Every structure is written in structure tokens, then in C-alpha cells.
């Protein structure tokens, strides 16, 4: 409960009218806009944009792994494949939805950028902990860095294509939008690794495959910050 004194002072200020904007200014703005008023096509619904993003990420991951080899998918048992799909598809849908909301002004995001990254990593860790029980760590660093690199490299085309899908949108918080978009692209990288990487050791999956999401999100934030700095100059 706010202090009664502060509440009263705020109410008093809210009740006091502020001067309206200059009428001549409003006329001028109206004249400028009237000269260019043409019909525009509103953005499609959030669900449609979200579905496009999920399909796009899935396409990038499947196409890249089909080209590189589906060794990971082949080495998984049927129950592992089912659990993997049951975990990754809803996660991608949720992250894609949050990503779309970041590109439409006035949308109500349900998760902040940090929550998107933490939630994605949490789901992936849980999923991998359930799926993989081999706790050996053979060539942990060497094979892990290679997988992280491959995952992030495959997240880049997904991020570029996602930016094309959302090109008509407008991010009022560009860094938050880029972090969420980076996390989604990172999920495309994770799907690629699950289809391609035959290393089913739990530490490898838990650390290096999961790390693709926060690394991609961080790269997204860095790109957005650099672009913002360039455009402000």
C-alpha cells in the first residue's frame, strides 16, 4: 500500500490539467500525414507469424542435418525420438510466440528475455537428463566445442530468415527482441544437433547442446546493440 501522503500528492497532480499540445502543431502533423495516407495491410495474426517461425526453424534444422547426415536421429531409440519431439516442439512454439510479440508494439509479453533463455535451457536440461543416461565424457571439450560451433553456425541462417519473416514488424525494445529471436534461432541449432550429432553422452548433451541457446541469444543481443549504436550515429 502506498503512503497516503504520496498517494494524495500523485492524485492531486493527476487531477491538475496539463496544457494541451499547440493546435498549430497538430494541424501541421495532420497535414504532413494526410499527404501520405494510403491503405496499408495490417500484420497477420500472432499465431500465423509464430507458426511461420516454427516451420522456418524446423526447415533450416532438418535441411541442414539431412545434408550433413542424420546420424544423431538414427542413433536414437523410438521412445527417445518421441520424447525429444514432445519437448522441443512446444518449447519452439512458446519461444516463437514470445519472439513475435517482441516485434509488435503494444503486445503483452508473458516472458521477459531472461526468462525465455532460462526457461529454454531448463527445458533442454530436463529433456536431456531424461533421455540420456550415459555419463561418460569422452573428448568432452574437443567434441563439445565443435558441436557448439555447429549449432550456432546453423542458428545464423535461421535468425536471418526469421528476421525476414518479421521484417514488417517493429521492435520497441530491440535488444529484448534480438535476445528472444536469438534464443529461437538457437533452438533451430539444437534441433540440428539432435538430428546430426551421434554423441549421446549426457554431459555432452547437457552442456554443449544446451549452450547453443544462450550463446545464440547473446550473439543476437550483441548484433542488436551494434545496429542500434550505428543507427543512432
Amino acid at each position, binding site marked *: 500500500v502506498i*503512503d497516503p501522503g*504520496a498517494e494524495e500528492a500523485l492524485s492531486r497532480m493527476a487531477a491538475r490539467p496539463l496544457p494541451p499540445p499547440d493546435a498549430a502543431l*497538430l494541424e501541421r502533423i495532420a497535414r504532413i500525414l494526410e499527404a501520405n495516407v494510403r491503405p*496499408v495491410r495490417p500484420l497477420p495474426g500472432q499465431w500465423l507469424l509464430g507458426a511461420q517461425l516454427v516451420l522456418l526453424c524446423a526447415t533450416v534444422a532438418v535441411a541442414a542435418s539431412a545434408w550433413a547426415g542424420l546420424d544423431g536421429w538414427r542413433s536414437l531409440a523410438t521412445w527417445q525420438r518421441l520424447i525429444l519431439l514432445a519437448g522441443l516442439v512446444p518449447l519452439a512454439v512458446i519461444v516463437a510466440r514470445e519472439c513475435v510479440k517482441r516485434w509488435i508494439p503494444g503486445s503483452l509479453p508473458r516472458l521477459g528475455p531472461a526468462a525465455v533463455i532460462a526457461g529454454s535451457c531448463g527445458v533442454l536440461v530436463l529433456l536431456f537428463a531424461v533421455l540420456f543416461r550415459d555419463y561418460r565424457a569422452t573428448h568432452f571439450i574437443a567434441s563439445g566445442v565443435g558441436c557448439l560451433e555447429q549449432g550456432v553456425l546453423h542458428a545464423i541462417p535461421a535468425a536471418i530468415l526469421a528476421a525476414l519473416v518479421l521484417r514488417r514488424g517493429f521492435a520497441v525494445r530491440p535488444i529484448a527482441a534480438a535476445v528472444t529471436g536469438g534464443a529461437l534461432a538457437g533452438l533451430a541449432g539444437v534441433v540440428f544437433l539432435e538430428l546430426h550429432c551421434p554423441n549421446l553422452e549426457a554431459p555432452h548433451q547437457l552442456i554443449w547442446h544446451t549452450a547453443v541457446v544462450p550463446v545464440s541469444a547473446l550473439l543476437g543481443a550483441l548484433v542488436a546493440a551494434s545496429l542500434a549504436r550505428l543507427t*543512432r550515429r
Partner: protein
Amino acid sequence: LQQPERAGDRAERTPPARAAPSPETLMIAYQRGDTAAATALIRRVSPLLYRLFLADAASRAQAEDLLQETWLRIHRIRHTYRPGAPVMPWAYAIARHIRIDHYRRSSRISAREQSLDYEAVAPVAEPARLEELDALLAPLPAAQREVIEMLKLAGMSLEEVARATSSTVGSVKQKAHRAYRRLRARFKGAPQ
């Protein structure tokens, strides 16, 4: 003596179709290329956006510049408004972006330039009110101050503030709670 009452009754019976169109209706017409709707929307929404700018601007001229810049941006991205959604949080979100962008740009410029004494700044329209507001909200960080301004001064709901600031309702509640705690401490004279 009874005439005003009858007039009032007539006003109450006025069909809703004759009422002024809502900002949402005007926005949809604006998207369809209706010039009159664009003008009506500017007249309807501008005072609210101007109020937002005036609370933080250094001068009335700066608030007017920001308002004009906001309308140019709104015009350019008017397709991002989705029919059925509330217009005000959408417009506030764009205005807020313009304001933040402006302050970042101006702070960058002022960091590079020396102050110019001859560059007189026009006084703000109502210095007393804004000084009082500044004094009251001075202990709050910018993000908390913004939330309090929107909740208490602009009369927006938590969800509208969340939409306008592109953050979650939980985050808005948290900022408001922290701001209230600081204000309470200030009013009770407790150390910050």
C-alpha cells in the same frame, strides 16, 4: 426548471452510434487510408502522448518535437497495429521508444559537446507542476518513475503499462511495488 433534466434524459437516450468513434475505430479507418480518421486520431491521441513527453521533457518545444517525431513513426509503422488490440498501449509503446531513443542520442551529443550558454531553452508550460512532480519522483530510478507516471498520472492499468513498456505484468508490478516502497520511505523520512 425541468428543461435541463429532459435535455439530460435525451442525451442519455442518444444512440451509441452517434458517439465519437473510439481510437480503435479511427485507427482501423486510418489503416484503410481514411484521411479524416487520421486527423481525428491525431486530435484524440496527441494530448495523451504530449502529457507523457511533458512529464520528462526539458522544455515544451522538446515535448512538441517528440510528439511530431512519434506521429511520423506511427505513420510509418501503422500496419503494426492489429485490429482488435487497444490503440493507446500501442501508441505509448512507440512514443516510449522515441523518447528513449531521443534521450540516448541527446546524451551522446551532450557528452561530446561543451554547453552553449547562448542556447536558451524555452520554459516548460507549467513549471510548478513539473517541479512538484520532479521533487516527488526524484528518488525513483527512471524505470520505476515511468511506471508510476503511467499508473498514477496517466491512469493506465497494469496490463496497459505492460503493453506500453513491452514488459510482463509481473515486471510492472515489481517496479511499482519498489517505487511505492521508496516513496513511502521518503514520505516517512526514513533513509533511502
